[in-house]
């Protein structure tokens, strides 16, 4: 089932938390939902899961509005603060979640075993939730979200508090689920987005500021080629001047004088690799390094969300 978000707006008092957001997520797609603190990610997710009602706009899941609550059965949701009943033990809690989510009685046992295995809860499954460490509580949160094998998964910062091993496993799990399901996950860990998501949506102050694959975002942010090079047997100042004189080069920065490291920005739609190589040969400089520089996701994020 796809998720279609149409002109969603939600205010708390005078403050607009979500301001006219529209986007679509298809089955088999994992959408990374990014944005600085207070951008409106959690609010959007609460609207998708029908906990909150939008002031205007709508969310359609498989073409049906979520407003009447009937689509909730197709959604698995991990809330941001992962609220759980501390006095229940893990198995009882998951059983209860399965019943509430209409898992047929004869399948409940199998589903719970599956979740315990997937989320690594084997050793802790008879403990009370209140006695679990934060990471294990997070795993219980993930297990309850997936217990009814939902078509749509909404995960608000799913990997917070997990240890590195579990992070790798959970990311792999999300990737695998994402092949058939529709997944939206929010996170502040940018490498996580690169590792798990097919698509990135960045919002800032309730508005969408970027939408696309990591590659397309990079391209948009950069617009032109940037090379980092290192020369030996060359005079840095002379090198800067000579490279600057090349027809395709728009700008040169001296990054490190002793090591003679330079950053070369090409003019739009051109590349300078060949010209630099030829220049070095002609001048007798040794070109020991030449790497294309990728804008880091962190920088893209920063540029889009700092104002």
């Amino acid at each position, binding site marked *: 089932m796809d998720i279609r978000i149409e002109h969603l707006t939600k205010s708390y008092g005078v403050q607009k938390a979500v301001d006219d957001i529209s986007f679509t997520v298809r089955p088999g797609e994992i959408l990374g939902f990014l944005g600085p603190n207070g951008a409106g990610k959690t609010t959007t997710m*609460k609207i998708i899961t029908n906990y909150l009602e939008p002031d205007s706009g709508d969310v359609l899941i498989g073409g049906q509005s979520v407003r009447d609550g009937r689509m*909730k059965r197709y959604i698995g949701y991990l809330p941001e603060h992962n*609220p*759980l*009943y501390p*006095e*229940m033990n893990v198995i009882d809690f998951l059983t209860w979640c399965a019943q*509430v989510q209409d898992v047929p009685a004869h399948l409940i046992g199998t589903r719970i075993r599956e979740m315990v295995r997937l989320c690594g809860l084997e050793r802790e499954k008879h403990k009370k939730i209140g006695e679990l460490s934060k990471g294990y509580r997070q795993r219980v949160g993930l297990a309850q979200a997936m217990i009814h094998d939902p078509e749509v998964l909404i995960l608000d910062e799913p990997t917070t508090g997990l240890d590195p091993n579990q992070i790798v496993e959970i990311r792999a799990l999300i990737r695998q689920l994402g092949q058939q399901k529709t997944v939206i996950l929010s996170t502040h860990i940018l490498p996580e987005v690169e590792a798990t998501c097919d698509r990135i949506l960045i919002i800032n102050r309730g508005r969408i500021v970027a939408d696309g694959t990591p590659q397309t975002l990079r391209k948009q942010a950069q617009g032109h080629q940037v090379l980092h090079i290192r020369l030996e047997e060359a005079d840095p100042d002379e090198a800067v001047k000579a490279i600057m004189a090349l027809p395709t080069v728009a700008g040169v920065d001296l990054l490190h004088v002793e090591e003679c490291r330079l950053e070369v920005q090409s003019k739009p739609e051109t590349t300078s690799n060949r010209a630099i190589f030829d220049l070095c040969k002609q001048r007798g400089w040794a070109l020991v390094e030449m790497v294309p520089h990728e804008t880091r996701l962190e920088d893209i994020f920063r540029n889009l969300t700092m104002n």
Partner: protein
Amino acid sequence: MNKAWIIAKRELNAWFDSLVAYIVIVAFLAFSGIFTWLAGADIFLRQQADLSVFFGVARWTLFFFIPAITMRLIAEEKRSGTIELVLTKNVTDRDFVLGKFLASLLMVSIVLACTLPYYFTVSILGPIDHGATIAGYFGLLLLSAAYIGIGLFASSLSNNQIVAFLLALFISIFFQFLFDVFADSTSGIIARLFDMLSAMRHYDSIARGVLDSKDLIYFLSLCFVGLVLTEWRVKQRR
């Protein structure tokens, strides 16, 4: 309805697991027992094999105990955030409120069932009016349903259990006691209106063994209004 039952069952399990159930039952028995059997106008003085003393006491015991039972049911879910967990599952706001109501009504029924030995004891002591006893218990259940409605509404108003408890007492005391006083100190149509609102009057008429539809409607509508307001309050989050 099925969902309401799943919610209620979880609540009842938690109640028994946490020992609160046993504390409430023992405290209720002790409280109503002392006043019924020992203090003041006790059963032995009356020289009559009936439970009217117990019913008079139980009405007040319930007045304090029901807010204590209902106070956490919604306030605590709001405080800890678990209300978001429940309401984003395949559960409607109405199922949620009905589940809480069902759980409280069952808790009160269990507590009241624990007072049945009083009934057996008295029936050994002398000939007891079984009809009046059944009517008395039935009246207590109706009264409880109404106070649970009030209690749940109070619980939905706050994130703090103590505030919810005091609010429930504050609202209930009008029905328990104050409307009755107002009725006595006014006259004419105003007095009749207060009379109509007083839970005490309606309870007394049921306890006498007269099952009037007016009394039934009174308690059920009080309960209904409480639950409707609670659902409305739960929806307010949106």
